[in-house]
């Protein structure tokens, strides 16, 4: 999956009005609530086979961090 494809998919997961950038800080998004975290964990699992937990969000701060967790080369 390309960076662009990832950004588009992740925008849909977060139902974000504006396009995301790799440097977008998750906490800065209005949409970043507990349901969005839950959706992100499920997204990593269903689309990338990657197991994540809420604890991981202490280190996953940006969209790029989530992409890295998904195994998308930076």
């Amino acid at each position, binding site marked *: 999956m390309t960076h662009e494809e990832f950004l588009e998919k992740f925008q*849909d997961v977060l*139902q974000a009005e504006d396009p995301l950038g790799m440097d977008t800080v998750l906490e800065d998004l209005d*949409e970043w609530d507990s*349901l969005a975290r839950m959706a992100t964990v499920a997204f990593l699992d269903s689309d990338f086979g990657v197991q994540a937990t809420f604890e991981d969000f202490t280190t996953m701060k940006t969209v790029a961090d989530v992409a890295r967790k998904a195994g998308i080369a930076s």
Partner: protein
Amino acid sequence: MTAPAGERLYLVTGASSGIGKGIALRLCGLGARVVAIGRDADRLGELAQECGCPERIHPEIRDLAADIELLPQYVKGLKEKYGKFHGMVSCAGISEIRPLQILKYENGKRIFDINYFAPLMLAKGLLDRRHNVGRGTSLVFIASIEAHLADKGMSFYAGSKAALIASVRSISREVAASGVRVNAISPGDILTPMTAAVEGMRNDRSHLYPLGFGTVDDVAALAVFLLSDEAKWITGQNYILDGGHL
């Protein structure tokens, strides 16, 4: 009662017949705009004529059992065409009597596709916060009293409606923080083309209904209430509407 009127936009499935048609007519009569989904173009055309305000009915022909995975994108397209939604009433459905002897997995899949999976994938599209107006958005799913009964031959149908009711509860929790509400109605026997097809229904079952069989208007009245702001503290519920049967 505060009617869900004005320039509000609603999606109604199954709008070409029976309960869905009655709800579309009522919403339109209250001044709302309705994206009316069905497969039968002629009958959707009749709906637009009957309502006396054809400019507020937007007919959309779509087989909701096809490409179910793409239904959220379909809703996105409708939002781009007509605007953000204030809610949805999901009525499209099929009913079949299938005793165990002739139960086939294929029948079950067909019933679940239209009665369960399609409504949920439409809800996914509509509950995307980019596609609705936010606070005040309300979704109503037409389930069935069969989900609560023990009638012979209804295993798949009853299962599909019970599944819908269970999912309504789960979804209601997911969207409550945004002020969005999700409820179900479980009607008993309503006189519509669907039940007219079940031969002898009137004679066999009339004794079950102390208040008589229901009408499309009975369901439309409750659906419109649940869509309105009068129901702003109601979510995750399933209303049995059955003239005293249960």
